[in-house]
């Protein structure tokens, strides 16, 4: 082999001679647009968080030294944890139930879960004002029936934001979890039953452990997505449940403190990408 190859002095055997760039050249127009309108702005934001206008870490120092900013950061992670937990509690039984349905019923249930996925977050958030707002459907009914003296404050608090974020993010947990559940072989559970395991034992010792990686990945995905929420806390939080997104809005549009906003936005970006890398690792273990 080593003697034969260079002897003829020919190019290695390849397909037809390629033009210099080949098909790859067709990515150039989009790459140019993305570099200018996406990558450059992200990098400029990163740079701006370290400039004022000369290089400094003052904005970052202010961020970690101001209790108010830290409280909003903490509140955002707390809301993300609550949302992830509630989505897990609601989503697992939902995915499990859809798996047990047969043929047509399964398709209908799947469509119903998938449908809200494509409807505007703004519309779905607004819907909760119609249903649970102070002048909304439920409160009007409660007042009309004389069950309460004053409207029940479902919204404009942590509960309201949790309802909104959970409603938007539930499909993100259910769909991949259901896909993982569908891959499990039913004969596995029949075998466990033959060996004398109770239904409860089969679920907790066979079924649940097998779906745990996908379940954990789904919960983490919901957590990541909640971190960047802006519309839902703005509408359903009534200013009482500030999250990172809303703080950025204030720092950009009201204060304005652009360098600080750049630092906080960069922090959110890094947290999201870091957790997303973790999500990929967990997801890969489940597959």
């Amino acid at each position, binding site marked *: 082999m080593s003697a034969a190859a260079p002897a003829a002095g020919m190019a290695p055997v390849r397909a037809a001679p390629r033009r210099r760039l*080949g*098909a*790859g050249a*067709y*990515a*150039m*127009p*989009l*790459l140019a*647009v993305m570099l200018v*309108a*996406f990558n*450059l*702005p992200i990098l*400029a*934001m990163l740079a701006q968080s370290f400039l004022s206008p000369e290089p400094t870490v003052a904005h970052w120092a202010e961020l970690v030294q101001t209790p108010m900013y830290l409280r909003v950061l903490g509140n955002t992670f707390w809301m993300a944890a609550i949302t992830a937990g509630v989505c897990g509690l*609601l989503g697992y*039984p939902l995915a499990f*139930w859809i798996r*047990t349905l047969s043929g047509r019923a399964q398709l209908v249930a799947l469509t*119903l879960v998938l*449908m*809200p996925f*494509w*409807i*505007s*977050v*703004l*519309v779905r958030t*607004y*819907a*909760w*004002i*119609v*249903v649970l*707002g102070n*002048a909304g*459907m439920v409160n*009007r009914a409660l007042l009309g029936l004389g069950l309460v003296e004053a409207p029940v404050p479902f919204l404009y608090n942590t509960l309201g934001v949790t309802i909104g974020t959970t409603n938007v993010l*539930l*499909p993100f947990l259910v769909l991949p979890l259901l896909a993982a559940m569908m891959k499990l072989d*039913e004969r596995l559970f029949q075998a466990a039953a033959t060996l004398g395991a109770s*239904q409860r034992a089969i679920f907790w010792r066979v*079924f649940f452990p097998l779906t745990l990686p996908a379940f954990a990945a789904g919960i983490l995905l919901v957590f990541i*997505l909640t*971190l*960047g929420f*802006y*519309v839902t806390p703005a*509408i359903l939080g009534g200013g009482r449940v500030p999250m*990172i*997104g809303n703080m*950025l*809005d204030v720092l*950009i*549009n009201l204060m304005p403190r652009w360098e600080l906003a*750049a630092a906080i936005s960069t922090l959110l970006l890094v947290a*999201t*990408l870091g957790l*997303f890398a973790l999500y990929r690792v967990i997801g890969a273990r489940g597959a």
Partner: protein
Amino acid sequence: MKAGPLATLTALLSLGFLLVPIVIVIIMSFSSASSLQFPPPGLSLRWYDSFFADPRWVEALLTSAILALVSSAIALVLGSLAAYAITRGTFRGRGWLEANFVAPMILPAIVIAVALYLFLARIGLLGSAAGLVLAHVILAVPFVVLIVGVGIRGLDPRIEQIAFTLGASRPQMLWRVLLPNLVPSLASAYILAFISSFDEVIVTLFVAGTWQTVPKRMFNELMLEVNPTITAIATIMIGLSLAAIAGVAAIAGRRGMRSMMGDGGS
């Protein structure tokens, strides 16, 4: 495995929790009452009338439609060419390139909003139509790159090689061989890119300046008062989204049938 009563109950409540608000908004948009009374005392189209009678809403609708048409068309052209390059190219770093093109879908919209706001402010394009279109193109590109990429992967590359063998240049092959075979993928990609642009609110709030789109107006009105006109707009947006996914599902269904009958790609 069977679902016990508790699991079934939780599942049904979860499904209700997902769907009830959407259903309620649709019903309320046809209410004749000016309060959010349920069930509505009567049915009427007054909130749709008040939407179409308000020139500010009609203008916002027009802006949203033109913005979505233009930016998803640009995203479709650039994104499809890039999808071809990534799928059929042999250069290094294709994975990274695709990840970069899909990134706007994964990053929080608020981060993109802040970055674009600061950038457009610096180059003097904040609040300009060009800046707004550019922002929407960036956000629509991931849908096109992903969907058209899947479409190209599903085609037999030998068809393209035969076209080259018969003397077609690459642009000729793209236009006369690949494009006709990709029409379903391109249509799906365009529909989803259009909806993503039409529904976009966060980045638009930051970079649109005085331009009013439907979601932006809706967001701002919501912060001020509860106005039943918004239920009509919300229902229009729901209808548009459902029509879009029905369209995409119909396209996917036809392709599924075709591939089952052994016609078309694998």
